[in-house]
C-alpha cells in the first residue's frame, strides 16, 4: 500500500478495543493494543462475516465475537484453520492514525 491515509485521531479508539473504518472500498478494523501499538486488519470475518472490530483482543490476537475463532493481528493467520485475514501497515503520527507504509 503506497498510499497514505489518515483515518482520524488516535483518541477515537479506546485502549484495547477496535473500530471500523471505510477506506476506499475496503472495510478496515483498527485495533489499539494495550501495549500502545496499532494493528490494521480486514474488518469482516472470513468465517461468516462477523464484525471483527467488535471482537476482544490481546497483544497478539483478535477473537471474532460471533463464533470465537481467532486470528493473529500481525500476520493475519488463523489459529484454528480458518482462511487468513488481510493485514495492513498502520502507525500513529502526531496523534493521528495513519494507514499505509
Amino acid at each position, binding site marked *: 500500500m503506497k498510499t497514505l491515509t*489518515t483515518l482520524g485521531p488516535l483518541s477515537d479508539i479506546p485502549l*484495547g478495543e477496535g473500530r*471500523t473504518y471505510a477506506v476506499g472500498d475496503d472495510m478496515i478494523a483498527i485495533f489499539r493494543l*494495550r501495549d500502545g501499538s496499532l494493528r490494521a486488519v480486514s474488518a469482516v470475518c472470513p468465517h*461468516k462475516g462477523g464484525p471483527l472490530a467488535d471482537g476482544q483482543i490481546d*497483544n497478539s490476537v483478535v477473537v471474532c465475537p460471533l463464533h470465537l*475463532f*481467532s486470528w493473529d493481528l500481525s500476520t493475519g493467520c488463523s489459529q*484454528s484453520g480458518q482462511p487468513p485475514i488481510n493485514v495492513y501497515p498502520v502507525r500513529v503520527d502526531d496523534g493521528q492514525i495513519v494507514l499505509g507504509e
Partner: protein
Amino acid sequence: MTQKLVVIGNGMAGARTVEEILARNGDYSVTMFGDEPYGNYNRIMLSNLLAGVETEEGIFLNDLGWYRDNGITLNAGVKIERIDAEAKVVHDSNGVATPYDKLIIATGSYSWTPPMKNVHNPKRGYHQGVFAFRTLDDTRGMIRYARDHERAVVIGGGLLGLEAARGLQNHVSQVTLLHAMGHLMDRQLDPKAGQMLQASVEGKLGIRVITNAMTTEILGKDRVTGVKLADGTVIDCDVVVIAAGIRPNTEMVANSGLPVERGIVVDDQMRVEGQTDIYSVGECAQHRGSLYGLVAPLWDQAKVLADHITGTTGVAYTGSKLHTKLKVAGIDVASMGLIAPEHDEDEVIVYNEPKKGIYKQLIIREDVLVGATLVGDNSKAASLIQHFDRGTALPEERSSLIFDIGGAVEESLDEMADDAQVCNCNGVSKGAICGVVAGGCGTVSGVMDKTRAGKGCGTCKPLVQRIVEWANGGAAEEDPAASWYVPGVPMPKPELMAAIRKYQLKSVSSVFDKLVPGGEHDAKSKMGLASLLKMMWADEYVDERDARFINDRVHANIQRDGTFSVVPQMKGGVTTPAQLRKIAEVAEKYGVPMVKLTGGQRIDLLGVPKEQLPAMWADLDMPSGYAYAKSFRTVKTCVGSDFCRFGVGDSTALGIAIEERFQGLEGPGKMKLAVTGCPRNCAEAYVKDLGVVAIDGGKWEIYVGGAAGAHIRKGDLLTTVDSAEEVIRLTGRFLQYYRENANWLERTYSFVPRVGIDRIREIVIDDVDGIAAALDAAVEEAVQAYKDPWKERAEPVTPGQFRTSLPLTVLPQVPVRS
C-alpha cells in the same frame, strides 16, 4: 550459545522429541537423519493405509515444510553408519561427518524375520512376494503386489499380524494367518481369550487361522508360491507378510562402542549409560530393563528428555505401564498388565459368554487392578485402564467393573463411526478428534482448541473428553489447564481469588501483568476475569471496557449479522397493556425486523443496529432485561394462586420479588430461575438454575442445578421453607456461593453435582462452615451496586461505543490521498 543437536532416526520418537524441545523453546540448531526418504509419518496408521481407510497424505505428521519452517536440517534417506563419541561426530552413508554437542538416538526397530529357508533373495533382500510390515515403503510394496494376487499368508499372530491380515483382506480374497504359538496374541491374552478371539477372527472376518504353525520354508523359485510348515503341511499362496516381531535397531550403536544389551541402555533421563551428551528414546532404548513397542511410552520419554535437555532439573522417566486396546474389524480386544494370576491371593474375576464371543478377565491384588483381558466388548476398557494406570481403589461391587449396571449405558466409542458428528454446533466428527489426538495432541483442552469441538453450547464436552481418552488408549493426558479458571492465567479459582486479594488487583490488565509469568494478556480470558473481579470488588472494580465482551460493552446481544437484540425487563413475565403499547410503538418507529417472545417470558426486538441502541432505550424507557450477559436473567412464573385453580402459592408475586432483587447480578454463567404455583410445574421450575415450587401448606421447595437447554437435568431439592422471605434469602445465599465458587462458564447443572447437593445444603442451609452471614452480606452488596446499564445512553462511555463495525450504514468516510 546455540548448541548443535543431532537426532538419528526421524520416526515417531525422534520427531516427537524434537517437537517437544521446540515447544520448550530449546536453544538448539537441529539436524536430523532418517533412513527413510520422507518427513515424519504416523507409523500406526500404516494399518489403516493397508486397510484402505486412510490415504498417504493423511498419515503424515510433519511434512518437509515443517522442518524448513522450524529451521531443522533434515537429511531424509541418509543413514548414520557410525557414532564417534570421542570426537562428537556422526558419520553418514554419504561419507559426511556431522559434529554435535548433543546426540539423540531414536532408531526404532526393524521387523524380525524368523529363520526360514528361502526367505531371502541374495539380490533383492526378500524373496519376491515376501514383505515385512514396518515402513511406508513396505506397505506400498505390499499393496502394489497384492493388487494382482489372490492368496496371502501372514506369519505372526500378534497385534501386528492381525492388523496385517485384516488389511490384506482389502486386497486379496484369501488370507491365512499362521501363528507359531498355541493361541493368538499370546503376549497379551490368556489361552481362553486367545481362542475366543480366534473364533471371532475366523467366524466374523473369514480369516483362516492356524496356531502352533511353525513356518520352515518359503516355496517358489523366483516368486512365492506357498509356505511349508514344520509338520510338512503346504499352504499355497502368492503373498507372504512377515509380522513375527520386532528387534531394536542397535547394531550401528553397538559397533560404535556404546552400551547395548537388548536395547540401548539408558538412565531415567534417557541418557545412554556412561555418556554425558548422548541420549536415546523410542523402541531402541532399554530403560530399567524394559523395551517398549507401543507409542504411548515414547511420548512420555520424549517429554522427559525434552525437559531435561532444555534445562529443567529433577525430571525422570520411571517407566510406563502398558495397555493395548484395539479393534480387529469388529472384534474388541483390550489387555493390560498380567494375563494370569501369580499368587494364590490374587483375586480373579472371569466372565465368559462364548455365543457372543465375549470374555472378560480381571486380576486384582490388594484391591488394585493388576491385569485385565477383554475380548468382544471394550465398553469398560477405558475405566479399567484408568484403574490400572492409577492404581485407584476399586468398587466393592466388582461386577460393576465389567458391566454397566443400571444407569445410562454409554454408547460404545468403538461402535461409533468415524464420520459421526460429535460437536453439533461446530460440526466436528469423531474422526477429526481422533486425528488431532493421533497427531500428538493428548489433552482435552488442546483438542478443543484445535478442532473447536465442545466450544459451542458445550454439551458435547463430556463426549469429547471420552473420545480423547479413548483415542489416547485410556486416559487423556494430565491437563493442568483444565483446573484453571480461565485459560490465560495458570491458577484454579480459589488460588486466583486469593492472589487477587493479596495484591489488590482490581482491573483485568493488572491481573495479567501480575499473575501471568511473562505478563502475557489473553483475549479469551478477559471476560471471565472481568466477571470475577466485578463479583469480588463490586464498586471498587476498575472497569476496563476492553475486558468486556461486545454484548457487555453495548448491553445487547450480538446477532449473526452484527446487529443486536433488545430485551426489556419484564419481571416474572408479567407485563401491562401500556408496556406492550410502548414496545409496539418503538418497534414500529425503528422498523425492527423481528419481534419475538423469548423462552424467558419476555419480548425480544431483534435486528437492531448498534448505533440505534441508545435512542431505542430512551424511547422504551424500561430497564435492561440482561438477556445478553453471563448474569441473572429472568424469573419465569406461572399465574399461581391468584388465578390458577390449582395454585397453592403466589408464584407471580414471589417471582417478581426475586427478579427485582437480583436483577443484573453477574456470575460465572447465566442464572435462569422460575417460580411455579404448584407441583404441576407450569413454569418449569424443576429444570432451572434455581426453581421454586409452591406446595400445599404454604411451603416452598427450592431446587438447584436444573437445566433444560442443551443439557437437561432436574434440579436437586435443596430445602423446603415456610415463607417467601426465606426463599429470597436462601436464593441470594445460593447464588452468591455459586458466584464465588463456580468456574467460568460452569452452569449450576455442572456446579451442583460437582460440589454435591449435600455439601451445598451444609453450607447454604445448615451453615456448617459458618460463612452464611458473609454470603448474605456479599450478595447484599452486589444487589446495592446494581445500576441499569440502559441508563448509560446520553453520552457514550467510550469514543465510538455505538459506532457500527459493519458496512450496514455509511461509515465515517475518509478521503484517500496518493
